[in-house]
């Protein structure tokens, strides 16, 4: 272990390297802390809203103590839904800053409520959040480059290279040096992440995967740095080439891919479906009511004997045409989702080639903060919406009165619990990341072993 102490001294004696490592440790700690603070804030927000919502319902129950039917309560009662952050969310906040994680819905047409936006400052969201994923994907490669780009050329420029290469088994020396730097970088990232995971109650498996992603990301960038470092260039050239590679891999190619993706898979059905839904819902006022009711019982046969609607306004017809409006755009809604998922799938495939995109895909999948997680929340809302509707239908269709006691019987939202697993897509992305990083790392190490003057 003597060599370790010696090499460690070498690393730390270089003030620049020591500063760089300290800075990386600081930045990743700051990112973990900032992520945890944000997650805590989101938890508090969710907790704050529950009593507010209950007061709202209580006020409504007081306003409509005894209704002849459930129409008014059904129309005016909002239900709260929420998407609690997962235990790993602090690592990668993802879409949670721009997509709502709390949403109120009511028994009316869901498609007009589901895409409601959240209040957020777009100028704040534009550059992205400062979280662990950002430090790992954008900043850590820069530190790897700084520490490793002159591993060989530095020795050449000071004239020690010939001596080092003449030593028996010089390859091992290089591998030790590279390995030590790799380990130090890894520790700077892993320690804050592990502390954060322990404090947040992130599962062992999830934490293990985060560490694996971190290791793979660093392996890719140290491997690439070694590959360049073993070429017979000057330190400055190495740094230039590596930084160029970093800019292309983490800034230029993802941005280009995004342009390509937006063009290849146009997603404008969202607006189409909203316009179409409105036409159907509002057009219902002009249609014969029997026609609307016929459409409604086609999907709700249990009410086929209760479709008679009086000439004047009746709530069951009102809620029926809202439901028919939703059903009329079900296909468009499916297409819209399909388009979003297709974009997501292609992003995942891109991650097989670009380590930054791959790492981002895995981390955000694990944290449950990506597009599929957002869609899962929408699914949970849709299921809850179905529950709410079917709660009111017996009152409306059987003309049953709705009293104060019935308010207490209203369904409550049960949030989905993220399992902290990467899922099949995540595993595929992880595997691809490992293969890519492993290949580059091995190539770098192999070149180190064959280093000649």
């Amino acid at each position, binding site marked *: 272990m003597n060599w370790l102490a010696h090499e460690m001294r070498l690393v730390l004696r270089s003030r620049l390297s020591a500063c760089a490592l300290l800075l990386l440790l600081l930045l990743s700690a700051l990112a973990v802390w900032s992520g945890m603070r944000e997650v805590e804030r989101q938890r508090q927000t969710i907790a704050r*809203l529950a009593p507010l919502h209950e007061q709202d319902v209580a*006020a409504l129950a007081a306003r409509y103590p005894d209704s002849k039917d459930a129409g008014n309560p059904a129309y005016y009662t909002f239900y709260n839904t929420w998407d609690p952050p997962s235990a790993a969310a602090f690592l990668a906040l993802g879409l949670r800053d721009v997509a709502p994680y709390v949403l109120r819905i009511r028994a009316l047409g869901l498609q007009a409520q589901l895409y409601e936006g959240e*209040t957020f400052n777009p100028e704040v969201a534009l550059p*992205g959040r*400062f979280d662990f994923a950002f430090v790992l994907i954008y*900043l850590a490669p820069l530190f790897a480059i*700084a520490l490793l780009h002159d591993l060989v050329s530095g020795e050449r420029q000071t004239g020690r290279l010939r001596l080092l290469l003449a030593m028996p088994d010089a390859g091992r020396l290089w591998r030790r040096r590279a390995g030590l730097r790799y380990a130090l970088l890894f520790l700077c990232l892993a320690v804050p992440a592990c502390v954060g995971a322990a404090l947040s109650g992130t599962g062992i498996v999830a934490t293990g995967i985060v560490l694996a992603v971190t290791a793979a990301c660093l392996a890719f960038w140290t491997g690439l740095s070694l590959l360049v470092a073993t070429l017979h260039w000057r330190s400055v050239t190495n740094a230039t080439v590596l930084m160029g590679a970093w800019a292309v891999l983490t800034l230029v190619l993802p941005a280009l891919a995004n342009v390509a993706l937006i*063009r290849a898979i146009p997603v404008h059905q969202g607006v189409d479906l909203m316009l179409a839904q409105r036409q159907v819902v509002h057009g219902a006022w002009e249609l014969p009511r029997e026609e609307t009711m016929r459409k409604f019982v086609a999907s709700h046969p249990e009410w086929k004997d209760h479709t008679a609607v009086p000439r004047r306004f009746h709530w069951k017809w009102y809620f029926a045409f809202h439901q028919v409006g939703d059903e009329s755009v079900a296909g468009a809604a499916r297409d819209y989702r399909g388009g979003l998922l297709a*974009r997501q799938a292609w992003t995942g495939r891109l991650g097989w080639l670009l380590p930054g995109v791959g790492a981002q895909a895995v981390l955000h999948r694990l944290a449950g903060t990506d597009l599929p997680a957002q869609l899962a929340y929408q699914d949970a809302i849709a299921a809850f919406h179905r529950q709410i509707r079917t709660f009111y239908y017996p009152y409306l269709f059987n003309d049953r009165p709705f009293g104060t006691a019935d308010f207490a019987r209203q369904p409550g939202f049960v949030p989905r619990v993220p399992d902290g697993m990467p899922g099949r897509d995540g595993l595929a992305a992880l595997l691809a990341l490992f293969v890519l990083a492993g290949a580059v790392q091995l190539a770098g190490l192999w070149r180190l072993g064959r280093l000649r003057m």
Partner: protein
Amino acid sequence: MSAVLGAATGAATVATRNVIARIAREEWRALFRDRAAVAGIALLTVLMLVAALTAHEHRRAADAERARYQAQANHEFEAQPDRHPHRMVHYGHFVFRPVNPLAAFDPGIDGFTGNTLFLEGHRQNSANFGDVRQTSLLLRFGQLTPAFVLQVLAPLLLVFFGHAAVARERESGTLRVLLAQGVRSRQLVLGKLLALGGFAGLALLPALAALVWFALDGHAPWPLAVALAAGYTGWLLLWVLGVVLVSMCVARGRDALLVLLTAWAVIVILLPRWVPDMANHAVALPTRFEDAIHVQREYLALGDSHNPNDPAFAAFRDRLLKQYGVTRIEDLPVNFKGLVGMEGERKSSELFDRYAAAAFDRQERQGEIIDAFGWASPALALRRLSMAAAGTDLASYRSFLEQGERYRYALIQGLNRIQVERLAYADDIDRNKDNRVSRDHWREFPEFQYEAAPVATTLRRVAPAAGVLALWLAALGTLAWVLAGRLGRIAR
């Protein structure tokens, strides 16, 4: 006597100019002998062209699509059948935010905001269907646009190929030779600045061409295009100065590169993310959920505007009765139910506006915190300048929402007025009667026309950020001038 002196000074100026030009020429020759520098500038040019083309195409397609949707929504509104005007109040309208012509240069927050606004009675909705929720997380890596290329990549190029400008002379010993031969240190630095400035100009050229193209093709106002050009010229000049300055102060080219890359990473990558994050924590935004509950509570306290007998409107009723000199609402010459609707809409709109303004004010306070850090990272100042000039910042988004709200209010009150004037009160309160007015009324409403902010207003918004950039330039320029005078002495 003075003529002789003048001639001498003139000759000296020409000589100085010659020396500076020669140094710049030599530096250029060195730069272009470096194949990497040529490849770098070529790559940047290609990227810029790709970015300009795709951003332009994206803007054009988005604008055409939104215009098409707007036409469709207008048509659907006008094509509604004869019906009760209050049904139209609930049917509502859609407006779409047109894309600013210069958004092709810097789309700013365009991808992060909704661009579809549903307008209806008794409610203010959020703008929905922004790109950010529809494009996976890839958008967060940055959008390939001319602004991105100039903001992020061009400084990196200047760092790579300029860091050794002076350091190289010092390392190889030529600096001492040059100074000994009578070249003034300031001349040397000016020459290097000129050369690197020329290099930056090459990087800027395609962007300027793109800007001219966008201005011609999209009919963007020229002053704004010029402001953008000036802003980015200043930004690159800032880096030229910074690069040469560091190259002057540091002993070795290698150290200069490290210092400059660190500065770049902090200024361009780290601070622009970290500062907004901090601002977001300093000023908390309430969720739409909370606002909705609070608004609804106050809204209910205003009374039910669908119910003409709601006690909340008693004072309004009494005032009206007195105004017309009658004792019963049935005797009013106008439809009281419609008037209650108008009064309710007026009060509720005030309420909504108050909440919307409060939310926007909080966001603007966050923006002010971010702007204050322009002193620490000129990248923030540049981004502010760029987004404001391109009309893709929060202020112009707010303006769209406020114009949409004004349009909504005029539309809803217009429909209520039709109810007031065209429907008799007795008919209107009879629930068994089918009250309808002619569909011709729907066509009377003007279409929504988005008005971009006047150029002068935009320029005023741009000014503070431009001031920060100018101060940075002045500070770095002064520093470079002072240190250049002592080049022979520093870091020998």
